[in-house]
C-alpha cells in the first residue's frame, strides 16, 4: 500500500514543479494538477478500503524519532474517511473550476493543491504545533484562492477572512504554548494524558484559548460575519471547498483535541454549536441571496454537528462509538455533499437572488439534482441526515435532554423553511428567456455528487439501529427509482405502468392486512389506483409527476406496514415529501405548498419528539406495540404524537395550509391529497388512540380536549366553506370540516364513536374524491375556479352534475344516501356519551354544510349559462370513469350499510367490546334507535317514483323553454351575468355571524411568522460588513463564552 505521506509529497512536489511544467504548456500543467488530485484521492481511497476490510491503522513517523519527540501522522479509519472526502471533493471542485483555472495564472492550481494538502495535514497530523502549521498553510492558501475572483467584494471578504484567521492563529499559538508549558509535550495523545496531572485554572484557560481558536474557525454565531461574506462572494468551486472540506478539516481537529476538553468545555462547545445552529437558521429565513443563504445553512450545519458531537460525548458516548459516528457522520456527509453540490450549482446559475435560480428549470436534470440536495439538507428521508437526526433525537431524549432536542428541531425547522421556500421559488417562479449553460466539467462533479449522496443514503439506512426493518420500503422505492429513469416516456404509458404495478402491489399487500389496516389499505391503495385513472387526460410527458405520486403512495403503504416507530416515521416523511411535490405542481401552488410543508415538517418534528420520549420510557425500543404499555409521560407522548397527526388532518388552528394546497392542486392531485392523504393523519390517530386509551395530563382528559377541537373544526371548516368563491377551495374547507367529524368520533373513545368516525372517513373518501374530480373536470373545461363565473352547466356537463348531486347528498347527510349513516351514528354517540355541548356545535356545523353544498351545485350547474360556456364539452372520459365507480360505491354503501359497517364493527370490538351495533337483516339497532338503509332507500324511491308519475300524468304537454324565458319584471333579460345569483351568496350569513366568521387562525400564524422574520431581521443587523466590527464580535464572543464557561 502506498504510504499516506505521499499525499503530501505529491502535493508539495507538484506545487513546486507546476510552474516549471507550465512553461511546457497549460495542458501539461493541468494534466499533472488533476493527476495529483486523483492520486491523492486514490491513496485515501485505498487506505479507506483497506481499513474497512480490517487493516490496522498506521502511524507515519518523520525524522526518525517516535512521538512525543517527533512529529507523526496517523492514518486510521477516521482519517482515511475524511481525507478521502476532502481529496475527492478537491478533485471534483478542481474539475468544476477547470475553466477558471485555465484562464488564471498557474498560481491558482498551486494554491489549490496547497489548500487541499493543508486540510489533509489538519486531519492526519497528531502534533499540536504541526497542526498550527497546517492551519496556517490552509488559511493562506484559502485566502489566496478567495482572491481568484478579482472583484472588490471577494477581495474585501478575503481580507476579513485573514483578520479572523489571524486572530484564531494567535489564540491557537498561545494555547499551544501554554499547553506545552504545562504538559511538556506537543504530541496530542500524550498531551491529553499529561494534562490531567496539570489540571487547574491556568491549564483550563490554556485549553480554552486553544479551543476558541478552533471555534472561531468553525464560524460560531455571532462571530461569523466574515465567513458569510466569504460564502457570498467567492468563486463557487472554491467556496465548495471552504464550506465542505475546510469545515471537515476543522471539525476533525475538534474531534482530535476532544480528549483535552473537560466536561464544562465540552458543554461550552455544545452550547455554541446549538446557538449557532438555531440563530443562523433563524437569520437565514430573511435571506434573499442564494450563496449567502447557503452560507447560513453551512454555518448552521457545522453548528449542529458540533453540538451533536459534544452533547453525545458529554453524555458518555465514546468519541468513536457507533452512535457518535452515525449521528455526526450522517449529518456531516449530508452537509458535505449537498453543500458542495449546491455551491457548484450556484457556479452554474450565477444568479444572486433566490428567484433567479428558477432558470435551472430549463434543465430538468439540474432541477432534480438541486431538489435532491435541498431535500437532503432539510433532513428528509432517504438521506443520511434524516437517519442521523432520528438517532440523535432518540439518544438525546432517552438521556433526558428534552430542551436541547427541542432547540435542535426548532433550528432544523427554520432551515427546512428557507430551503423549501427556495425550492418552491425555483420550481414555480417564471424565469426570463435567459439560457443556462453548463459545461461537461460542471456536470461531472454534480452527477458524481448526487450519485454519491444517493448511494451513501442507501448504505447509511442499513447502518442505523432498526435500519434493517426499513426493507418494507425497498420495493416501492425501487419503483420510484425506475420511474425516474422512465420519465422520458409519454404520460399515458407511465400512467398505465403505475396503475398496473400498483394494482399488483395492492393485490399482494391487502390480504395480509388486518383490522383497521385493511380498511385504510382500501382507502390508500385501491383509492390510489382509482385516482390514477384521470391521469390519462394529461398529454405530453408530465415530467416528475409519477415518481412523486408513487412516493406518496409508498409512504402510505409504509404506514400500513409499519411495526416500529422508525418505519412509521420514515414512511410518514416519505409520504410528506411525495405529496409536497404533487401539491406544488399546481399553477399557483407555491405559497400553499410551502405552508403545507412547513406544517408537515413542524408536525413531524413534534411527533419526532414524542417518538423520542416514547423510546426513552419503553426501555429503548422502537416497537409500536409497546405504545399501549408505557406508564410514564403517557399524556405528553400522546399529545406530541397527536399534534403531528393533527397537522395532517388539518384540525382547526393547524388547517390554514389545506385550502390553498388542495384548492390550487392539479385536477387529479386534489382528490388524491384530499380523499386519501388526509386519512393518513387519521390512521396515525387510530394507531395512537387504540394503544393509549385514556391519556391524561394532570386531571385533564386529552380526548375530551380533542372532542372540542373536533367540533370546532367542523364548525369552522364548514363556515369558511360557505364564503368561498373558488369551487375547489370550498371543497377544501369542506374537507377540514369533515375531518373534524372524524376527529370528534375518535375522541369519544367508544365503539360507536369510532364507528362514526370510520363511517365519516369512508364517506369522505368516496364523495370527496368524486366531487374533486367532477369540479376538477368543470374547472378544466371552463378555465376558471370562480363559481360565479360559471352557471347553468347542467346542460353542458350532465354527468359531472350527477356526480356533484350524489356527492352533495352524501356529504350533507340527507337520507337515503350513505352520508346519513354518519349523522345517525352521531346522534347515537352523543346520547351514549352525553356530550351535548359538543353535540350542539357539531350539529350547527353540520347544518351549515347544507349551505355550501347548495352553493356548489347551484352556482356552477344551475342558474344561467354564460355566453362563453355555450360550447363547453363534458369532462374527459378518464375523469368520468372513476366518478361513476364512486357513485356505484356510494349507492352500495347506502343500500347495504351493514355489509360495510359490520366488518368494521367486528374489528372495533377488539378495541372496544362494549356498545356494538346489533345488525338484524341489514337493519342497524343501537341501544337508542334503529336504521334500515335499504328500507329508507326503497321507500324514498317508491314515493319519488309515485310523485314523479303523478306529475307526468297531470303534466303531459310540457315544453322546454329557452334560457331567458323567465318571469322577469315584464321583460326578458339577455345577459346571464346579471341574472345569475352567485357572487357572495351568503352575505347575510356573514353579516349575521359577524365575529365568528373571521379567520383567527391565519392571523395567529401570520403573526408568529412575522415575529420570527422580524427577529431575524433585527439580529441580522449585527452583520455590518465591516471587518473591524467583525473583529470586535470575535473578541466579545470569546469573552462572553469565557464568562459562561467559567460560570458553568
Amino acid at each position, binding site marked *: 500500500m502506498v504510504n499516506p505521506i505521499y499525499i503530501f509529497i505529491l502535493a508539495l512536489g507538484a506545487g513546486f514543479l507546476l510552474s516549471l511544467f507550465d512553461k511546457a504548456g497549460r495542458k501539461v500543467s493541468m494534466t499533472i494538477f488533476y493527476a495529483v488530485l486523483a492520486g491523492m484521492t486514490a491513496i485515501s481511497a485505498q487506505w479507506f478500503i483497506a481499513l474497512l476490510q480490517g487493516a490496522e491503522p498506521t502511524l507515519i513517523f518523520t525524522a526518525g524519532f517516535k512521538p512525543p519527540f517527533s512529529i507523526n501522522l496517523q492514518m486510521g479509519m477516521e482519517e482515511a474517511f475524511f481525507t478521502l472526502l476532502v481529496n475527492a471533493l478537491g478533485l471534483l471542485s478542481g474539475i468544476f473550476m477547470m475553466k477558471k483555472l485555465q484562464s488564471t495564472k498557474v498560481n491558482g492550481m498551486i494554491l489549490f493543491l496547497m489548500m487541499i494538502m493543508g486540510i489533509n495535514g489538519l486531519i492526519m497530523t497528531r502534533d499540536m504545533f504541526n497542526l498550527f502549521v497546517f492551519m496556517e498553510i490552509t488559511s493562506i492558501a484559502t485566502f489566496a484562492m478567495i482572491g481568484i475572483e478579482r472583484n472588490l467584494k471577494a477581495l474585501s471578504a478575503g481580507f476579513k477572512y485573514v483578520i479572523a484567521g489571524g486572530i484564531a492563529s494567535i489564540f491557537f499559538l498561545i494555547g499551544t504554548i501554554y499547553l506545552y508549558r504545562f504538559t511538556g509535550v506537543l504530541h496530542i495523545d500524550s498531551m491529553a494524558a499529561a494534562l490531567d496531572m496539570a489540571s487547574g485554572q491556568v491549564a483550563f484557560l490554556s485549553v480554552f484559548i486553544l479551543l476558541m481558536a478552533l471555534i472561531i474557525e468553525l464560524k460560531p454565531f455571532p462571530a461569523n460575519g466574515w465567513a458569510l461574506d466569504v460564502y457570498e462572494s467567492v468563486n463557487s468551486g472554491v467556496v465548495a471547498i471552504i464550506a465542505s472540506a475546510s469545515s471537515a478539516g476543522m471539525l476533525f481537529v475538534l474531534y482530535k483535541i476532544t480528549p483535552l476538553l473537560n466536561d464544562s468545555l465540552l458543554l461550552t462547545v455544545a452550547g455554541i454549536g446549538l446557538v449557532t445552529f438555531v440563530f443562523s437558521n433563524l437569520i437565514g429565513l430573511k435571506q434573499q441571496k442564494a450563496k449567502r443563504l447557503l452560507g447560513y445553512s453551512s454555518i448552521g450545519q457545522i453548528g449542529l454537528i458540533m453540538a451533536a458531537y459534544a452533547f453525545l460525548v458529554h453524555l458518555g458516548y465514546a468519541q468513536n462509538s457507533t452512535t457518535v459516528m452515525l449521528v455526526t457522520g450522517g449529518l456531516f456527509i449530508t452537509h458535505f455533499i449537498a453543500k458542495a453540490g449546491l455551491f457548484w450549482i450556484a457556479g452554474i446559475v450565477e444568479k444572486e437572488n433566490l428567484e433567479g435560480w428558477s432558470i435551472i428549470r430549463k434543465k430538468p436534470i439540474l432541477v432534480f439534482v438541486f431538489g435532491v440536495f435541498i431535500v437532503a439538507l432539510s433532513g428528509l428521508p432517504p438521506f443520511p441526515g434524516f437517519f442521523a437526526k432520528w438517532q440523535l433525537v432518540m439518544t438525546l431524549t432517552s438521556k433526558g435532554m428534552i430542551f436541547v432536542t427541542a432547540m435542535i428541531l426548532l433550528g432544523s425547522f427554520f432551515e427546512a423553511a428557507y430551503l423549501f421556500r427556495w425550492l418552491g421559488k425555483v420550481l414555480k417562479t417564471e424565469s426570463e428567456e435567459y439560457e443556462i449553460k453548463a459545461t461537461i466539467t460542471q456536470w461531472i462533479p454534480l452527477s458524481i455528487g448526487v450519485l454519491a449522496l444517493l448511494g451513501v443514503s442507501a448504505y447509511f439506512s442499513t447502518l442505523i439501529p432498526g435500519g434493517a426493518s426499513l426493507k418494507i420500503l425497498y420495493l416501492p422505492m425501487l419503483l420510484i427509482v425506475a420511474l425516474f429513469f422512465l420519465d422520458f416516456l409519454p404520460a399515458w404509458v407511465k400512467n398505465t405502468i403505475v396503475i398496473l404495478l400498483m394494482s399488483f402491489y395492492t393485490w399482494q399487500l391487502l390480504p395480509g392486512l388486518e383490522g383497521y389496516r385493511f380498511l385504510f389499505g382500501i382507502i390508500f391503495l385501491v383509492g390510489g389506483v382509482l385516482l390514477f385513472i384521470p391521469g390519462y387526460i394529461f398529454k405530453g410527458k408530465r415530467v416528475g409527476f409519477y415518481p412523486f405520486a408513487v412516493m406518496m403512495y409508498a409512504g402510505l403503504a409504509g404506514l400500513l406496514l409499519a411495526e416500529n416507530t422508525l418505519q412509521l416515521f420514515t414512511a410518514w416523511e416519505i409520504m410528506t415529501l411525495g405529496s409536497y411535490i404533487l401539491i406544488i405542481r399546481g399553477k399557483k401552488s407555491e405559497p400553499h405548498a410551502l405552508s403545507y410543508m412547513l406544517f408537515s415538517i413542524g408536525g413531524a418534528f413534534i411527533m419526532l419528539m414524542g417518538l423520542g420520549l416514547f423510546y426513552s420510557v419503553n426501555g429503548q425500543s422502537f416497537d409500536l406495540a409497546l405504545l399501549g404499555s408505557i406508564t410514564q409521560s403517557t399524556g405528553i407522548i400522546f399529545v406530541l404524537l397527536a399534534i403531528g397527526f393533527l397537522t395532517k388532518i388539518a384540525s382547526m388552528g393547524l388547517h390554514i395550509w389545506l385550502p390553498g394546497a388542495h384548492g390550487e392542486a392539479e385536477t387529479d392531485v386534489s382528490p388524491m391529497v384530499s380523499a386519501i392523504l388526509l386519512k393518513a393523519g387519521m390512521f396515525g390517530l387510530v394507531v395512537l388512540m387504540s394503544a393509549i386509551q385514556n391519556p391524561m395530563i394532570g386531571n385533564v382528559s386529552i380526548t375530551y380536549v380533542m372532542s372540542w377541537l373536533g367540533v370546532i373544526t367542523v364548525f369552522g371548516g364548514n363556515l369558511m366553506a360557505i364564503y368561498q368563491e373558488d369551487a375547489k377551495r370550498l371543497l377544501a374547507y369542506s374537507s377540514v370540516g369533515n375531518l373534524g367529524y372524524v376527529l370528534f368520533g375518535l375522541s369519544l373513545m367508544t365503539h360507536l364513536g369510532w364507528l362514526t368516525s370510520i363511517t365519516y372517513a369512508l364517506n369522505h373518501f368516496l364523495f370527496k374524491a368524486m366531487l374533486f374530480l367532477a369540479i376538477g373536470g368543470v374547472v378544466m373545461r371552463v378555465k376558471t375556479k370562480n363559481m360565479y363565473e360559471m352557471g347553468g352547466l347542467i346542460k353542458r356537463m350532465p354527468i359531472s352534475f350527477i356526480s356533484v348531486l350524489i356527492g352533495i347528498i352524501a356529504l350533507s347527510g340527507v337520507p337515503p344516501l350513505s352520508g346519513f349513516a354518519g349523522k*345517525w351514528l352521531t346522534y347515537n354517540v352523543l346520547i351514549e356519551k352525553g356530550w*351535548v*355541548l359538543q353535540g350542539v356545535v357539531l350539529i350547527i356545523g353540520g347544518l351549515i354544510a347544507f349551505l355550501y353544498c347548495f352553493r356548489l351545485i347551484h352556482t356552477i350547474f344551475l342558474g344561467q349559462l354564460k355566453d362563453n360556456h355555450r360550447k363547453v364539452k363534458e369532462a374527459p372520459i378518464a375523469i368520468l370513469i372513476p366518478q361513476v365507480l364512486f357513485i356505484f360505491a356510494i349507492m352500495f354503501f347506502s343500500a347495504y350499510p351493514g355489509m360495510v359497517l359490520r366488518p368494521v364493527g367486528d374489528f372495533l370490538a377488539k378495541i372496544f367490546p362494549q356498545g356494538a351495533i346489533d345488525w338484524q337483516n341489514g337493519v342497524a339497532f343501537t341501544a337508542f*334507535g334503529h*336504521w334500515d338503509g335499504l328500507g329508507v332507500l326503497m321507500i324514498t324511491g317508491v*314515493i319519488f317514483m309515485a310523485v314523479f308519475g303523478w306529475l307526468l300524468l297531470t303534466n303531459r304537454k310540457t315544453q*322546454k323553454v329557452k334560457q331567458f324565458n323567465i*318571469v322577469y319584471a315584464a321583460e326578458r333579460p339577455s345577459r346571464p351575468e346579471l341574472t345569475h345569483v352567485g357572487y357572495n351568496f351568503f352575505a347575510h350569513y356573514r353579516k*349575521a355571524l359577524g365575529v365568528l366568521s373571521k379567520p383567527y387562525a391565519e392571523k395567529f400564524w401570520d403573526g408568529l411568522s412575522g415575529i420570527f422574520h422580524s427577529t431575524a431581521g433585527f439580529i441580522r443587523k449585527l452583520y455590518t460588513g465591516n471587518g473591524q466590527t467583525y473583529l470586535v464580535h470575535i473578541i466579545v464572543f470569546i469573552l462572553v463564552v469565557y464568562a459562561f464557561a467559567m460560570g458553568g
Partner: protein
Amino acid sequence: MGFEPIKILYAIISLFIIFNVGMLLNGITRKIGARVGRRHGIRFYQPYIDLVKNYALRSNISHGIMFYLGPVFRLTGGIGVYLFIPVIYGSQYFSNFSFAGDMVLVLYFIFFGLLGMALGAGESGHPYSALGVGRGLAQVTAAEIPLVIAFLGVAMQYQSLSITEIVGMQQGGIMNWTMMTNPLITIVALIAFLGTMMRSPFDIVLAPQEIPIGPPTEFHSTFLGVLQTNRAIFPMAKTVLFVNLFFGGATNWGILILKAFILYMVSVVVGTVFPRFRVDQSIRWFYKYVLILGVIALIATTFMFK
C-alpha cells in the same frame, strides 16, 4: 314490527287524512289572518279550489330536468317525512313506515325536499329563486339549531331515538308529557317550530305579501299544484312529529287532529301578530338568544335526567 304489504294501504289512508287536515288548516289560517286584518277573507275550502285549478292549467313550461324534478323532490320530502313518523300510538297499522328509521331519519329527511326544491328553483334561472333559496337555506340552518337541540334534549331525556318509544313513555296523563316533564326543552322546540313553519316572523323566504319572490317564482300550474300539495302535508308532518315528541302523541285520530290543530294555531297566532324579520336578523336571533336558551335547556335536561 317490520314491513307488511298491507301497510301501504294504511299509509295511503293516513296520508289522505293528513292531507285533508292540512288543506283545511291552510284555509282556516288564511281566514284568521284576514279577519285579524279586518278583511273578510277567503272561503275555508279555497285551497282545494286553487289546487284543482292549478292541476288543470295547461300552460306547462319547463326549464330543464332539475326544474322538473324540483317539486317531485319537495313532495317526496314532505310525504317521506310524514311516512317515517308513527302517527297513532299503539296502532300497528298507523305506525306508517317507522320501522325504517328513528327520529334522526325524520330530522334529516326534512332536508331531502328542501334541497331538491332548491335545486329545481335554481335551474329555473330566475334570480329571485336563487335569492329566495339563499335566504331560505340560511334561515333554515339557523332555525334548525333549536330544533336539533330540542330533539337531542328529548332523546337525552328518554334515552331513546325511537319516536314510538318516546311516545310510549309519555302515556298515562298530561303530567307525563314532555311539555310538563321538561318545559324548557319544549319552549325551545316551540321556537324551532315557529322557525320552520314559514310563517311570520320567519317568512322572508317566500315573502308572500309583496313580490313574487322566493323559490317557487318560476313554478306554475301543475308544478305549483305539487308544491301546494306539499304545503298541506309537510307542515302537518312536522306538527305530528312535535305532538309525538312533546305533547304525548295520540292514540286515535281525533286526539291527533285536535292536538295538531292547537299546535298549528300557535304558529298562526304568532305569525299574525308579529312582523317579519330580515334574514340576517333572524339568523342572528337564532344564534344569539335561542342558541343560549337551547344550551341552557340542554344542560338542564342532562342534569335532570341523569
